[in-house]
C-alpha cells in the first residue's frame, strides 16, 4: 500500500526564532471554516471568489459595545456614522437602525445618505470641500454644517442671507493633543488663535449662530490620553466662546480615529495587546468631560467612530490561484484578490486564516494579488504551510476603507455579501461586469472598429 503523501518541505534550523509568546512559528496556523456559521465553501460556491463578507451580527454587536461604553458613562451621547469608512448602503442602514447619524464629507456622500432616507437634520456635513450647490442643499435641509475654513464661513453666510435663514453652524478645530503627527489641515488651529478669530467672524454675522465644536485629531490613535487632551481643550474653548460671545455650545464632536483590532505594518505586538480596549477610551474621554465641564452642563458628545465599528465585521475570502518559488527561496502565492480590493494592505498587515487543515511546516511566504503590477503585494512576509491551488485564504479585518477606496483596476470588483442575523446570506453589492465599466464611455464615430 502506498504511503500518505505530504508535500516535501525543508526548513533551516535557526535559533532565536521563537517569538516572545512561546509559540513555535513553524507549526502555528489559523484555520477558519466558516463565518457566522456559514461555511467558506458554501459562500464561495454560491457567490464566487474573491468575496467580501460582512457580518450583520458582528457589526451590530460592535456598534452596541462601543456605544454602550460611552452611553453608560455619560448621559448625552450621539454617534455619527462615518460614510467614507464604508458607505455600502447595507452597512449604513444597519448603523442608522442602531441610531447613528450620517457623517458625510462630500456632496456625493450627502446625496447617498439622503437617498437612503436620512433627513438633513440627521446629517453631519464635514470635509474641506463643500461645493456651493451642495452646501446650499445641506443648509436648506437643516444639516449640521461643520465649517472647515474662512472661505466657508463666508460661503455659508452668503447662502444663509440669500435664503433669508439664520443658520446654526459648528467649526472644526485642530490642536496639539500630544500625539504625532499633529493633524493641522482640518479646521482652525486652537493654539495660534485662529479658532478664536473664526468665532469672532461668526459672531459678527447676523446670519450665523455657533452651536457646536468639532475636531478630528488623527487616525488609528493608540493612546487614549490624546482624546482626554482633545476633550479638555475643546471644553475650555467652548466656555471661552460661551462667556465672551454669548453662544451656547450644544455639542462637542470629537471625531473618530479609534483603532480597530488591525495590525499596522511595522508594529511588533499583536493587536490584542497593542490596541487598548474601548473602555479605556470611553473612560479617558468621559473623565476629561467631567473634570472640565461646569456642574449640570452636559453638552452632547458626538463621536464619528468608523474604523473601530466596521473593520472587524468584514472579511475577504480569496483563492490561491498559483504558486511559485522566488529566487531568494521564499514561497510565493498568487491570490485572486490584491491591492485593487485591499487598498489598506499598504498600511496594515491582515490576519490571514486558511479554510482547511494543512499538513507541513510553515515557511516564509509572500502573498501576491492578481494584478500585473509589481506593487500588488498583500503580505510580503508571512509563515504559511504549503498550500494547494484552490485553497481559500480569509483576510480580516477589512471592513474599514476597502469598500470605499477599492479600485476597478485590471479586474472587476467582486460580490459583497452580508450574513444576516438569521444566517441567510444577501448580496449587498453585485459583482461588476463590462457594462458597469463602460457605461460612461463614449467612442467617437470615426474611431469605431465595428
Amino acid at each position, binding site marked *: 500500500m502506498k504511503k500518505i503523501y505530504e508535500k516535501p518541505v525543508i526548513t*533551516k534550523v535557526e535559533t532565536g526564532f521563537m517569538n516572545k509568546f512561546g509559540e513555535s512559528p513553524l507549526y502555528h496556523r489559523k484555520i477558519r471554516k466558516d463565518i457566522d456559521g456559514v461555511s467558506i465553501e458554501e459562500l464561495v460556491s454560491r457567490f464566487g471568489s474573491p468575496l467580501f463578507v460582512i457580518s450583520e451580527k458582528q457589526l451590530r454587536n460592535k456598534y452596541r459595545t462601543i456605544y454602550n461604553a460611552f452611553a453608560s458613562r455619560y448621559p448625552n451621547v450621539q454617534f455619527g456614522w462615518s460614510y467614507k469608512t464604508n458607505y455600502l448602503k447595507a452597512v449604513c442602514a444597519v448603523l442608522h437602525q442602531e441610531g447613528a447619524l450620517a457623517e458625510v464629507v462630500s456632496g456625493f456622500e450627502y446625496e447617498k445618505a439622503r437617498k437612503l432616507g436620512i433627513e438633513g437634520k440627521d446629517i453631519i456635513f464635514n470635509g474641506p470641500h463643500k461645493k456651493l450647490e451642495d452646501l446650499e442643499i445641506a443648509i436648506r435641509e437643516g444639516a449640521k454644517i461643520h465649517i472647515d475654513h474662512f472661505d466657508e464661513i463666508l460661503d455659508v453666510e452668503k447662502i444663509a442671507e440669500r435664503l433669508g435663514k439664520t443658520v446654526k453652524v459648528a467649526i472644526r478645530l485642530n490642536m496639539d493633543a500630544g500625539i504625532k503627527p499633529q493633524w493641522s489641515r482640518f479646521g482652525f488651529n486652537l493654539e495660534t488663535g485662529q479658532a478664536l478669530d473664526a468665532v469672532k467672524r461668526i459672531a459678527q454675522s447676523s446670519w450665523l449662530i455657533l452651536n457646536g465644536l468639532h475636531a478630528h485629531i488623527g487616525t488609528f490613535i493608540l493612546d487614549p490620553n490624546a482624546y482626554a487632551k482633545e476633550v479638555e481643550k475643546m471644553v475650555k474653548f467652548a466656555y471661552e466662546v460661551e462667556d465672551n460671545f454669548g453662544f451656547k455650545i450644544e455639542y462637542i464632536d470629537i471625531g473618530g480615529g479609534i483603532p480597530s483590532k488591525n495590525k499596522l505594518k511595522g508594529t511588533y505586538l499583536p493587536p490584542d495587546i497593542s490596541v487598548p480596549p474601548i473602555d479605556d477610551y470611553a473612560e479617558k474621554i468621559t473623565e476629561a468631560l467631567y473634570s472640565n465641564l461646569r456642574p449640570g452642563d452636559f453638552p452632547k458628545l458626538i463621536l464619528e467612530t468608523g474604523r473601530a465599528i466596521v473593520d472587524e465585521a468584514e472579511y475577504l475570502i480569496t483563492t490561491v490561484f498559483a504558486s511559485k518559488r522566488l529566487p531568494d527561496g521564499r514561497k510565493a502565492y498568487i491570490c485572486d484578490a490584491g491591492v485593487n480590493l485591499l487598498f489598506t494592505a499598504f498600511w496594515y498587515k491582515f490576519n490571514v486564516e486558511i479554510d482547511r487543515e494543512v499538513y507541513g511546516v510553515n515557511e516564509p511566504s509572500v502573498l501576491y494579488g492578481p494584478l500585473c503590477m509589481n506593487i500588488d503585494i498583500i503580505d510580503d512576509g508571512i509563515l504559511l504551510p504549503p498550500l494547494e491551488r484552490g485553497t481559500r485564504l480569509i483576510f480580516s479585518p477589512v471592513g474599514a476603507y476597502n469598500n470605499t477606496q477599492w479600485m476597478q483596476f485590471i479586474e472587476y470588483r467582486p460580490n459583497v455579501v452580508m450574513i444576516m442575523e438569521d444566517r441567510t446570506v444577501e448580496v449587498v453589492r453585485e459583482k461588476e461586469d463590462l457594462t458597469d465599466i463602460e457605461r460612461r464611455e463614449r467612442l467617437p464615430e470615426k474611431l469605431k472598429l465595428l
Partner: protein
Amino acid sequence: MGRLNQLAINDEGFIFDPLTGESFTVNRTGLFIIKKLKENKSEEEILEDMLNEFNVSKDIAEKDLIDFIQKLKSYGLV
C-alpha cells in the same frame, strides 16, 4: 550534487552540514527526495519513485518536486 554528499542525514529528517555548521529539518517526502538525489537519480526517475512510493497524482508530485529542488538551491544544497 554539490553540498548534498557532505551532509549528515538521520532517518528522522535532521540534516547537518559539517562544512557550514547549518542544520535543517526535512519531512518524510523531503527526505525521500534528498536520498534519491544523493543516489544521483534524475528528476524524472525521482518523480517515478515518488509515484510508486506515495499516494499522489503526477501533477502534484511533479510540481512539488520542482519546487523542492528550487528550495534546496536557495539554501545552496544542490
